[in-house]
């Protein structure tokens, strides 16, 4: 089997079933597809944003409520010119052994800054957007946080968005 095979395995198979069994109704299943929006300019001219559920936030902002049984439906703005030293992680649902050594493994802010500086992408939105992935009410999540971040992304005139569901 090659790595490119459609059989490429994930390291934690059955994740959807596992979580949905433990927290019934918490996992999202969609039967429909949304039409693709098209990139209207070359990548080298496009302003990219980054949206993360990794619980990364600027030091000094209100920590995400990782203990709430239903989740924390708020988000934080992370300045795209921040250095990793100015950021910290508040979440308890994924292993952070890599991220604590080098934040870029889950929140690649320095790599995105480099790609913008090199002109591979046109630029970055002033802020990136961050929340925690532990959300036990998907309907509320879609109604509130998803729409709020989508609006914030549009307000910063992003041409494209990279998302990292942690």
């Amino acid at each position, binding site marked *: 089997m090659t790595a490119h095979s459609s059989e490429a395995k994930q390291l*934690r198979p059955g994740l959807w079933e596992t979580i949905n069994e433990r927290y019934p109704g918490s996992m999202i299943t969609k039967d429909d597809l*949304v039409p693709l*929006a098209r990139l209207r300019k070359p990548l080298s001219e496009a302003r990219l944003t980054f949206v993360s559920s990794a619980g990364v936030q600027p030091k000094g902002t209100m920590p995400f409520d990782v203990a709430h049984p239903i989740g924390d439906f708020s988000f934080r703005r992370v300045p795209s010119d921040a250095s990793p030293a100015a950021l910290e992680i508040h979440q308890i649902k994924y292993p952070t052994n890599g991220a604590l050594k080098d934040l870029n493994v889950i929140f690649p802010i320095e790599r995105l800054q480099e790609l913008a500086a090199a002109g591979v992408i046109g630029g970055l939105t002033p802020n990136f957007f961050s929340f925690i992935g532990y959300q036990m009410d998907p309907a509320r999540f879609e109604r509130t946080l998803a729409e709020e971040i989508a609006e914030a*992304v549009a307000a910063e005139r992003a041409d*494209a968005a*990279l998302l990292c569901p942690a």
Partner: protein
Amino acid sequence: MQRAIERKGIPTISITVARDVTEHCQPPRAVFVPFMMGHHFGVPFHSELQQRLILAALKHLVAAQRSGQIEIVPVTWAQARQEGKAIEQAMSIRN
């Protein structure tokens, strides 16, 4: 959330380590990397790999023809870890 952004006319791409979860929620575009949770962009200090994964995602952002398509990035966790260890070893020698 990805759907909400796409509905605003902004093309989106997600990078996932949980292929089954992504198949269930069918985002407009995604790339799958067979890595450990919390390590979507690889291993510490492996800047080249981290950047390559971002570029793989952006490539699919531009190239995807149909909604819901998941592209598999040809990387392995074993190799990423091996390279990461070598990088960290080299760093500790330098320090």
